């Protein structure tokens, strides 16, 4: 289930209180083609519009209070309560996808957007929500993910054979002192490895979207992990010197492979977008709650307009210069998902043509006895 809780200030517009829902509001709500609901400050629903009642095939009396929960798919109900209650306590907007039973008994995916509403005196009065049926979109997304998984799988087998054949050719050429042609074969292997990386990125994307990206948790030193990744990337990079500043002493709990993937992605991006420069800095910092890693390059930078969007899947910064850089536009999205799974956050700061800093924070691992 895809859930997003938005971190926005509550709107200050005044909407009618439970007892004061006027006729104008009712006419408007009942003529709307989307599903609308309203709840009071006691968390319980007191209003459903005509479209909702037609969709569920139930009466206002049946749906009112907590009656409408009967129509929510049992597997989605707990998640709904969690998101609704958390949003309610903070009086914030929320968005959630869940399956709702239609009049014909079939469960269909809906996207529910709840907005807190307040009286003229800014007293919290509950929520007004709107739902749209996204079942077809979800099904298409599912099919797309299945296709990506199947296509990636089908691509991997020939890539495996290709890689082994190239390895055999390279070994043969080396043993016959054909150094020049052996180097060509090695270059071909490097390209095959790039194809493998792209296939894996597509697979990861479909796994994230179907919430099936696997994580294997262990406790380890983030400082040591960052050092080993920097050594690895440095060994394949002649253009830049990667310098580590600072140190983290504590441990984190995470998936080493996945976290390496995120850090490697940030480092290779830093190199890719700072051609003509020769330095990358990796800054480490920790306090009692979290460890922070910042990867700094001194390349083309990112316009502040694009900064909030760069972690969106498929987002590629438009522009003559930017479009010349290769990539699928999913690396940062995958990195963000990995960091989020670690209970952390990732963000970017940039001054165009001067400096770009990608930062992420991960909570420090604390033993139960601490």
């Amino acid at each position, binding site marked *: 289930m895809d859930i997003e809780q938005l971190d926005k200030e509550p709107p200050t517009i005044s909407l009618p209180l439970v007892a004061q829902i006027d006729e104008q509001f009712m006419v408007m709500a009942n003529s709307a083609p989307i599903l609308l609901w309203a709840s009071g400050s006691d968390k319980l629903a007191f209003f459903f519009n005509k479209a909702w009642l037609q969709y569920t095939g139930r009466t206002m009396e049946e749906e009112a209070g907590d009656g409408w929960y009967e129509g929510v798919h049992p597997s989605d109900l707990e998640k709904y309560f969690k998101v609704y209650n958390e949003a309610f306590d903070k009086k914030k907007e929320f968005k959630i996808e869940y399956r709702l039973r239609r009049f014909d008994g079939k469960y269909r995916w809906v996207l529910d957007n709840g907005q807190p509403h307040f009286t003229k005196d800014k007293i919290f009065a509950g929520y007004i929500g709107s739902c749209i049926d996204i079942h077809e979109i979800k099904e298409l997304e599912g099919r797309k993910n299945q296709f990506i998984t199947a296509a*990636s*799988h089908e691509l*991997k*087998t*020939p*890539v*495996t*054979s290709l*890689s*082994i*054949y190239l*390895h*055999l050719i390279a*070994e043969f050429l080396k043993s016959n002192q054909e150094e020049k042609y052996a180097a060509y074969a090695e270059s071909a*292997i490097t390209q*095959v*490895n790039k194809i*493998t990386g792209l296939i894996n990125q597509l*697979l990861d994307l479909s*796994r994230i979207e179907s919430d*099936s990206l*696997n994580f*294997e948790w262990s406790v380890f030193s983030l400082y040591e992990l960052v050092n080993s990744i920097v050594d690895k990337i440095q060994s394949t990079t002649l253009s830049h010197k990667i310098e580590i500043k600072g140190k983290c002493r504590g441990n984190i709990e995470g998936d080493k492979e996945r976290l390496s993937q995120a850090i490697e992605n940030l480092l290779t991006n830093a190199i890719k977008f700072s051609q003509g420069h020769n330095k990358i800095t990796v800054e480490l910092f920790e306090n009692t709650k979290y460890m922070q890693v910042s990867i700094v390059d001194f390349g083309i930078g990112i316009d502040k307009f694009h900064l909030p969007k760069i972690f969106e899947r498929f987002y590629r910064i438009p522009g003559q210069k930017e479009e010349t850089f290769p990539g699928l536009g999913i690396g940062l999205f995958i990195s963000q998902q990995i960091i989020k799974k670690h209970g952390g956050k990732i963000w970017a700061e940039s001054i165009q043509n001067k400096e770009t800093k990608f930062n992420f924070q991960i909570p420090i691992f604390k033993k139960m006895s601490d």
Partner: protein
Amino acid sequence: MSRILVVDDDIDILSVMEILLSMKGFDVEVTSKGENTFPKIDSFKPDLILLDVLISGHDGRTICKQLKANKETKHIPVIMFSAHPGAAATIADYGADDFIAKPFDVAHLMKKVNAQLGIKKN
């Protein structure tokens, strides 16, 4: 010379694995059919089995479980491989000794093969 049996329904993988492992000095036999695994083991007596997770009509993991439940074959190390990296999490329950995700590079494969044969020699 150590003997390695490779079981995979993809003929291209089988031929390249046969060439590679032969060049690396192993005695190699291959089969593309899951049902041939046990007859091949009987006749070839491998020291190591490389077994694909999904073989047309067969689940390699079930074959692995049968191998490990049989006193004649349970000592033979089995490395499973798959293009589905998620399969790695599922193989331990079937008694496989190791897993390698496709596509693999030769160095990585040889490291795992040698480790399993080394363990057996000890």
